[in-house]
């Protein structure tokens, strides 16, 4: 917090890096466009086409997008503002159930997907504010345990809010969950009888989900980057580094933390609505602590504070668990490898995440794709890290 120098493009290496650093939104759009169009093509090449058909791959990628979105949201809370939220899946559940209530046969409502995407996110944000307002004044580790409790309570609420046995209304259909949720629809654009554009969302056509997800992620990424460099973003980072110092310098810590919490919840709400519309089913079991834990592992592994790193981490972990772990299990079974063929690797995924979390914290707390600034903070044990090094003022941040 010693030098709040405005970012000056430091001439170094290639000019391209600086250009992308300054035109971040354009870079994000370009990058996402390239990645989004390349992914479906890459999987048709060997050896990836041996794992799954292209359609299955695209379907997995769309699901991975849900977790990328969740991880980006949690990164705002954990990575930028430094608040440990262990009940993040609760907001995911709230978004999903909001859409399920407003667009399924269960309630008889059929409100279209697109406005509900916003409404679901807003509902999650309001819940974030309601939870955050009393608890964000607490010290960080208390917040962790309160959010842990909240994450535990929300699924219990959805599981038990079926009062038919006691003569009351059935609000959530209990453990059975709500099936038959509407899929998104888009108007068919046609000229005469010729359908110019007819985008259909269904299980046979995951490409439309995939592209929708890519667009949502692009928007969220741009927003997060712009927020990160804003006054609010700098306030978050100041709070993360030293809350007392930030407060003494006139940062309204409670409001800033509350906004981080609400924005994280909003992103989670988006993911919830999208997830419900893709799976067309919600049940309380989809939102347990393991989900919050997985998202946290994604954020930590990707590199807290670095959105691109977190997105990459989330994507890799999801594809790893969805595609490679089952394949590994099948592979060893097929070839009757002794000992290994009896192992169901999917059962080991949380053990792996746990080991990864501990290992990362001990050996490389900044994550695989670190934010430079965060890396320096997390290595405070080394005395030279306390001094901003000349390299500290890089093109990435305005605050060193």
């Amino acid at each position: 917090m010693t030098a709040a120098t405005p970012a000056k493009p430091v001439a170094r290496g290639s000019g391209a890096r600086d250009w992308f650093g300054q035109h971040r939104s354009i870079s994000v759009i370009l990058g996402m466009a390239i990645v989004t169009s390349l992914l479906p093509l890459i999987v048709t090449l060997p050896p990836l086409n041996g794992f799954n058909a292209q359609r299955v791959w695209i379907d997995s990628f769309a699901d991975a997008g849900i977790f990328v979105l969740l991880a980006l949201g949690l990164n705002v809370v954990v990575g930028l503002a430094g608040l440990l939220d262990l009940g993040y899946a609760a907001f995911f559940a709230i978004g999903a159930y909001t859409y399920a209530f407003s667009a399924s046969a269960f309630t008889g409502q059929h409100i279209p997907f697109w406005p509900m995407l916003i409404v679901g996110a807003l509902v999650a944000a309001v819940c974030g504010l309601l939870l955050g307002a009393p608890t964000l004044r607490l010290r960080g580790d208390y917040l962790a345990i309160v959010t842990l409790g909240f994450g535990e309570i929300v699924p219990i609420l959805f599981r038990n809010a079926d009062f038919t046995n006691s003569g009351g209304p059935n609000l959530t259909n209990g453990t059975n969950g709500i099936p038959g949720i509407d899929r998104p629809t888009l108007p068919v654009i046609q000229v005469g009888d010729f359908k110019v554009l007819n985008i259909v969302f269904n299980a046979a056509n995951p490409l439309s989900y995939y592209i929708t997800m890519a667009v949502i992620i692009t928007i969220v990424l741009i927003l997060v980057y712009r927020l990160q460099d804003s006054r609010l973003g700098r306030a978050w980072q100041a709070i993360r580094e030293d809350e007392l110092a930030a407060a003494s310098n006139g940062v309204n810590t409670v409001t800033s933390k509350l906004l981080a919490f609400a924005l994280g919840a909003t992103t989670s709400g988006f993911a919830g609505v999208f997830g419900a519309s893709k799976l067309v089913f919600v049940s309380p079991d989809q939102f347990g602590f393991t989900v919050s834990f997985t998202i946290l592992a994604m954020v930590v592994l990707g590199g807290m504070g670095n959105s691109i790193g977190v997105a990459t981490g989330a994507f890799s972990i999801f594809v790893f668990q969805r595609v490679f772990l089952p394949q590994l299990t099948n592979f060893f079974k097929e070839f009757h490898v002794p000992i290994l063929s009896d192992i169901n690797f999917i059962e080991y995924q949380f053990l792996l995440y746990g080991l990864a979390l501990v290992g990362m914290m001990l050996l490389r707390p900044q994550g695989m794709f670190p934010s430079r600034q965060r890396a320096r903070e997390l290595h405070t044990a080394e005395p030279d890290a306390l001094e901003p090094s000349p390299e500290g003022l890089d093109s990435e941040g305005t605050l060193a």
Partner: protein
Amino acid sequence: MSEQLVATLTQQFFNALTIGGIYALIALGYTMVYGIIQLINFAHGEIFMVGAFVAMTFLVGIGLHGAIADPLVLIVVLVAAFLVVMPINGLLGVGIERFAYRPLRNAPRLAPLITAIGISFILQNLVYIWQGPSPVTFPQLLSPQVRFSVLGASVSWISVLIVVVTAILLIGLQLFIGRTRLGRAMRATAQDREAAQLMGVNINTTIALTFFIGSGLAAAAGIVYGLYFGTIAFNIGFIAGLKAFTAAVLGGIGNTTGAVLGGFMIGFIEVISTQLGLAVWAHAIVFAVLVVVLVFRPSGLLGTPIGERA
């Protein structure tokens, strides 16, 4: 009618004491570790769970499956179980501290918290792999059918046993912290680590000792849990840990007497909500208590200013 009410109340009173004793034993571990290094040891609930499994393995290993009729033999077996299982679990706690928490002692707060979550998942999944997902029978050394009558209620001797064990351990702990040299070192370290070090307290040993005692008490809770409920599973640590933490906060985190008081209060809150027909909401009610306490009285019932303990 009123006789039946008295019977129900007595019955539930003993239930609450039993459950509360278990929470109190777990809560002590949270509060001691928090008092000394200001870390919420998220893995503590899992340490309790591992303790229950170690005890089960030990008892089955020495060939005990069913009830023991002779009270003298029963007492010997129980004492042996506590003496074997508590140190084993204590060493587990010390090992976790040594390899996962000590390297991060000067790191930002977030780092050890995330590590603790990771450890908790590692322990839970190791037991899952070891014992599988379904609940495992814990040897019923004292059959729940062995009961006595008081005020019209039929109370299992297990409840009495648990209350007695809890009481012995709690009094022992208070004496240890209050009267011994090592206990004084723990209090000094909790109050001001650097000053204690300057006065010749070995900080690393003292912190390791705290983890040893806390994890040992969690193992005792695990034994008691197994005896009372009859089955244990790999996932019992999570909710029990959350509730015990609530107990620790309710009593005033860092305060050992408070943790015990909080544990019994959570036991009563849970039993009362079950009695009122709100069993499925019991978790939610305990959690609501946690939020209310944290918001209105973050220092807890017996709260001392931060940094002081017991």
